[in-house]
């Protein structure tokens, strides 16, 4: 019988859904709490057929994934995919390299260079984001140079080193105050939701309301190309509708989905388990 090692920290509703889906498929799940694990050559490795990385912390999850890969245990998502997707700048570079439509972006390290960068991507407003992190935290919509100087000074004085690398995107007015989150497994978009919010940040973690989004051919195509650009696996893509078509905003590699199974009527957890089984069978 195949055993999935579920690398976790706290168990959220998402992980409970995965456990339920595995049980329905008669698949064993070994719960591996990374907070209580020691990753050392002196420690025996829990033998599992595939490791599914579901840590809330990106950094800790990535180290755990590296450890299992070093023991020749496949990890979903792989460290190669996670390394790109955990960093918004690296994700944007991968998308641009593969000619996948994305929001105009750039990175700079000083205010004067940021001003030049902002001009080159079409001027204000722009969004400054930490390269790492999620749930819509620490995003700043910058409408003019005064706001830019204030935000950058705060980051310079108060921020950690990664907050002093300024990732900037052109601000895109979202159609009907919504964006799309598409759930993509192995390049196939299994379902998608609209996230509606009166706020310019539409994350469901920030109060965005989820409703079903029918996946059309254009959405399927851009998500397939974006998946290919970052290395595939289990991904959640944030997609914005523009007058020129869809563009990819961000790609998440350890997605939360518990609020999306009901509106889409798709068992995302079931697809996750099935993909893990495919990875084992392909070994």
């Amino acid at each position, binding site marked *: 019988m195949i055993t999935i090692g579920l690398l*976790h*920290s*706290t*168990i*959220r509703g998402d992980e*409970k859904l995965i*456990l339920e889906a595995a049980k329905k498929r008669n698949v064993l799940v070994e*719960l591996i*709490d990374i907070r209580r694990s020691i990753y050392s050559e002196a420690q025996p490795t829990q033998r599992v057929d595939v490791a599914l990385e579901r840590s*809330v*912390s*990106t*950094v800790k999850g990535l180290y755990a994934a590296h450890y299992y890969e070093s023991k020749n245990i496949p990890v979903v998502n792989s460290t190669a995919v996670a390394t790109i997707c*955990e960093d918004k700048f690296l994700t944007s570079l991968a998308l641009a390299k593969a000619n996948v439509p994305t929001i105009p972006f750039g990175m700079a390290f000083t205010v004067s260079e940021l001003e030049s960068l902002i001009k080159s991507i079409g001027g204000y407003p722009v969004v400054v984001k*930490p390269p*790492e*992190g*999620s*749930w819509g*935290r620490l995003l700043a919509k910058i409408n003019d140079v005064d706001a830019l100087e204030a935000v950058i000074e705060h980051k310079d004085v108060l921020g*950690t080193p990664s907050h002093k690398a300024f990732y900037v995107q052109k601000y895109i007015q979202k159609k009907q105050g919504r964006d799309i989150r598409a759930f993509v497994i192995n390049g196939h978009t299994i379902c998608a939701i609209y996230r509606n919010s009166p706020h310019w940040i539409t994350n469901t*973690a920030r109060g965005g309301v989820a409703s079903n989004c029918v996946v059309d051919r254009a959405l399927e195509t851009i998500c397939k190309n974006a998946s290919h650009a970052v290395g595939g696996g289990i991904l*959640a893509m944030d997609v914005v509708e523009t007058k020129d078509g869809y563009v990819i905003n961000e790609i*998440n*590699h*350890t*997605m*939360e989905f518990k609020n999306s199974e009901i509106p889409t009527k798709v068992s995302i957890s079931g697809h996750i388990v099935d993909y893990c089984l495919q990875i084992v069978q392909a070994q």
Partner: protein
Amino acid sequence: MNAQCPVCDGMVTIAPDTIESEIIQCPECSAHLVVERIEGSHAVLTEAPKVEEDWGE
């Protein structure tokens, strides 16, 4: 199974299918709690960690 909320001292009922590390909510103070250990009919709860810089997708 019942356990005491570490935030408000209220009584929290733990569902039978609850597993260790699961996040639950105190019905009295709404604090998010982690079920750290289940030992027989006894559960140890701690306050769930707050958002950290690299949390979440």
